């Protein structure tokens, strides 16, 4: 850029013009589009707006509270509220309240859980099943995540991931149904086994722990895959190359370098899958049978029938919440992490 050849007369001229009336707009040159003022400029010039803003944004402290008020209220009311209220009514003896009767405080609802096998069994069953399914999902998806993170070129990774994501957009009911079709007595699996001559009569896969497991693993694989992939992708290849350079073989490298470094991903993935799988209602109902009743069904039972069973249902739900979150917390502690570390 060479020296400007002419002085900027316009600047000096405009300077004086603006200096005369810094806030009042100058007369429009022509009418129509050129005379339009920007919305925000107009807003800032508006007296009412200025008055409101002067109150709201007077100082840093006030600005903070104006911004914080609604989120805090929402989070307390809508996020925490339902859980707290659930706990609350688990200690009442009747809910919704009947006319002319004050609900009494009681722990009977909680005690009731331990007294009946038809309550305790599904509860334990749920925990065991979920743990098993989580482990299966881990074993199933770890190689896939490893492949994605280490064997696919970086720029293709998104594409490969995208392909994996597509089935998950479809929703749990549709996918559960798809599994039902596959595992039925006339389903694809039986057909395949028959056609290669392994069996004569169809195997009753459906309404068993197996079918429920297939369904749940099918539904939750992505929640294990993504954290695993994310963790594995972060391991620099140079670590593995250095290990190889120092004489470590494939399996050794995996055990000593890759596996420990992917621990955080394993922890996240397992946590997610465990929590999600305990929460399923439709899939166990559709794919499972009477012998595989999960606690979700037990809880649901109290809410779909008579209205006055809510307190027990609330107690059971609270119990399940405490247990699952507690188990998750212990698991994470064992894996050497405290909390999610998602904040920055």
């Amino acid at each position, binding site marked *: 850029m060479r020296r400007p050849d002419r002085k900027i007369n316009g600047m000096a001229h405009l300077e004086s013009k603006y200096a005369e009336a810094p806030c009042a707009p100058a007369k429009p040159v022509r009418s129509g589009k050129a005379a339009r003022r920007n919305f925000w400029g107009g807003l*800032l010039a508006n007296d009412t707006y200025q008055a409101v803003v002067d109150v709201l944004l007077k100082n840093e402290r006030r600005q903070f509270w104006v911004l914080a008020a609604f989120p805090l209220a929402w989070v307390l009311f809508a996020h925490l509220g339902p859980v707290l209220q659930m706990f609350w009514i688990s200690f009442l003896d009747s809910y919704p309240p009947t006319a002319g009767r004050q609900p009494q405080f009681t722990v009977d609802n909680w005690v009731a859980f331990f007294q009946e096998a038809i309550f305790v069994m599904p509860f334990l069953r749920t925990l065991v099943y979920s743990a098993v399914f989580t482990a299966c999902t881990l074993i199933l998806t770890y190689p896939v995540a490893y492949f994605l993170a280490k064997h696919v070129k970086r720029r293709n990774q998104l594409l490969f991931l995208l392909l994996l994501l597509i089935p998950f957009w479809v929703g749990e009911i549709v996918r559960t149904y798809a599994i039902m079709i596959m595992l039925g007595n006339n389903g694809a699996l039986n057909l395949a086994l028959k056609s290669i001559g392994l069996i004569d009569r169809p195997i009753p896969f459906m309404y068993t722990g197996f079918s429920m497991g297939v369904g749940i693993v099918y539904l939750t694989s992505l929640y294990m895959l993504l954290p695993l992939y994310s963790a594995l992708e972060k391991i620099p290849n140079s670590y593995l190359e250095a290990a190889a350079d120092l004489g470590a073989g494939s399996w050794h490298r995996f055990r000593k370098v890759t596996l420990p470094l992917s621990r955080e991903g394993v922890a996240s993935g397992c946590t997610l899958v465990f929590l999600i799988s305990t929460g399923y209602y439709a899939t166990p109902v559709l794919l499972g049978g009477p012998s595989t009743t999960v606690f979700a069904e037990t809880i649901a039972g109290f*809410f779909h029938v008579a209205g006055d069973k809510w307190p027990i249902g609330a107690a059971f739900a609270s119990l399940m919440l405490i247990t699952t979150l507690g188990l998750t917390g212990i698991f994470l502690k064992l894996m050497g992490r405290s909390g999610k570390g998602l*904040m920055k």
Partner: protein
Amino acid sequence: MTRHTRILMSVIYWAFIVYLFVPLVLMVVMGFKDSKFIGFPIRGWTTEWYSGVMQDAEVMGVFAYSMAIALASTFLSLVIGTWVACFLGPYKFRGKLIVFAVTCLPAVIPGIISAIALRIFARGIDIEPGMLAIILGHTVHNVPFVALVVMARLSTLPRSHIEAARDLGADAIVAFFRVTLPYLRPALIGAGIFCMLLSFDDFVRAYFLGGYDPTLPVLIFAKLRSGMSPEINAIATVVLVLTAALGLWAERSMRRLNKGAS
């Protein structure tokens, strides 16, 4: 990695893809079966199930209902989630970690418990099971996701941009609408589409918070309780096509936006 490991890994990936897609493909195919009964082998083919679904006013009504709920809850989630993110992101204060944990709470509670808690809560604030309750339930569930996505994007906005806006005459509100919000656009679109999908696909909350009218997943579930039929396949396939299309469109626009407005 050795060539053998490479091939093995590759096979595992594609086997997994097949494992994910095959049930869905089978489901679609079964919808063309010319018979009332679900099962293989398929002897005759027909499109009557699909055309029947398209013309079924009840199904189309349910679809519109699900859509309306998804749109409403997505809008609410975006507004609330963004507000929460703008509060949690930049400010440091005592108890921030607790507030963050409570914000994420709906996302980590197992589905059934979340649905039950919301059901009780709705009763507590005098909302009947129905559309409003479901919208509320979906909003509560989706806000954490929106907040996380927006917070991630917000953390990459240099402080100097806001200072520059203020330097040029903007107060905090104008700076938000003219600088911050446009910057957040890719995150908002991504989060929005994610919310649409979550809401559209949701079962537990819609089941427990719903009234007489079902959402699409609830409808399918109800029909399945009375037994399978190709009609259900057709409905399920409609859902499949729609959600897959929505998801793919989302990915494409996210990709384009991230290239443009970084």
